[in-house]
């Protein structure tokens, strides 16, 4: 765990090229509108090895992880027209697809409630204009913000987002009361949001 956090911290000190998120959004546009396989290949080659890693960190075998990568990437292809760049980066959207598959297949629960809400994300629906403008910029700043929060807060984020460990099990694992875990999560989340707002 510590090695992972250090590696992550090392990586997150390097700011991402700000145009990269826009590049993936442009590739998504070509997949959605022209069924462009070359554009899809570029998205695949970037994200598939990360989705595989994401699934294996939750305990999937290499074989199962590749099954889930295949499902994730086929969903990216077939749902491409549902992706709206003003709602978030391509990485955010692909994360949500991978997350839902992980819930369905690795945890054997249903993630249908996420899909039920897809319609509510219509760009005209309650999203203030300046927020939509800032979003792709915001996404590329998250990594830097992550490097600035205290290690115990970052650990909670990694346990939640990467290891798929629920709050109650984090509490057990770290031998802390649930209330303490929750307040650390709140702090981590608020700290991240604040760092992102300052940047913007």
């Amino acid at each position, binding site marked *: 765990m510590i090695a992972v956090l250090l590696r992550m911290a090392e990586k997150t000190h390097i700011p991402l090229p700000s145009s990269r998120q826009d590049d993936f959004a442009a590739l998504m546009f070509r997949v959605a509108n022209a069924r462009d396989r070359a554009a899809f290949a570029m998205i695949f080659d970037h994200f*598939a090895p990360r989705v595989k890693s994401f699934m294996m960190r939750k305990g999937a075998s290499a074989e199962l992880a590749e099954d889930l990568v295949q499902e994730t990437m086929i969903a990216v292809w077939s749902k491409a027209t549902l992706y709206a760049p003003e709602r978030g*980066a391509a990485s*955010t959207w692909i994360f949500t697809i991978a997350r839902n598959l992980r819930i369905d297949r690795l945890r054997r629960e249903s*993630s249908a409630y996420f899909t*039920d809400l897809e319609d509510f994300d219509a760009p005209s629906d309650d999203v203030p204009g300046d927020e939509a403008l800032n979003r792709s910029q915001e996404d590329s700043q*998250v990594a830097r913000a992550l490097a600035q929060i205290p290690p115990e807060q970052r650990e909670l*984020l990694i346990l939640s*987002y990467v290891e798929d460990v629920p709050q109650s099990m984090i509490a057990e694992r770290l031998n802390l009361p649930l209330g303490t875990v*929750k307040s650390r999560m709140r702090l981590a989340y608020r700290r991240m949001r604040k760092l*992102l707002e300052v940047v913007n």
Partner: protein
Amino acid sequence: MTIVHHLDDATILSYAAGTLGEALSVAAACHISMCSECRTAVRKAEALGGEILDDLETIAISDVRRAATFASLDDARAAKPAVVKSDMPAPLQRLLGGQDFAQLRWRRKAPGVAIYELPLSKGAKGSLKLLSIASGMTMLEHGHGGEELTLVLQGAFKDKVGRFARGDIADLDEDTEHCPVIEKGETCICLYATEAPSHYKTLLGRLLQPFLKI
């Protein structure tokens, strides 16, 4: 609709990360479908997930798998967005198969109290149910296990935390003790989710205990 009581940031984070269990997630999703503020918060938390995914170490995909994925693209049908328009939050509407509250086969648990159990996946822990409580009733003083959510869908109740009406969600700390009073007028219908394996100390358990001796 003015929503006063929102999801706790810790719950938003767990929901977006995908670690919140199914029962709690459905209740959270129903609130999110009615609350633009929490929807924005979830998107921000998901953006964090996207960045973390983007930042993970890579593990190479086998050539066979890459080829297989590309070969199956032609068979993949293009997805269309589902169009759902209803007063009922979409995740609940799906679970009820389009039925409204009046059409459900409620189980009467005590005078003025009825419940309707909602289906969850086999792998899911805890339970998810609709509670119908007659206007004017007072619930017993109770605390919260810290792993439960109560979303008001109809009517309203009041307690020392405040007034909870349609769209409001009680995502309370475990040390919050309260005894809600159902407002006069309409029957209060809530969606109640808990991860707790038993009814012990949960809202529903404490509510029904004196009637049912459970």
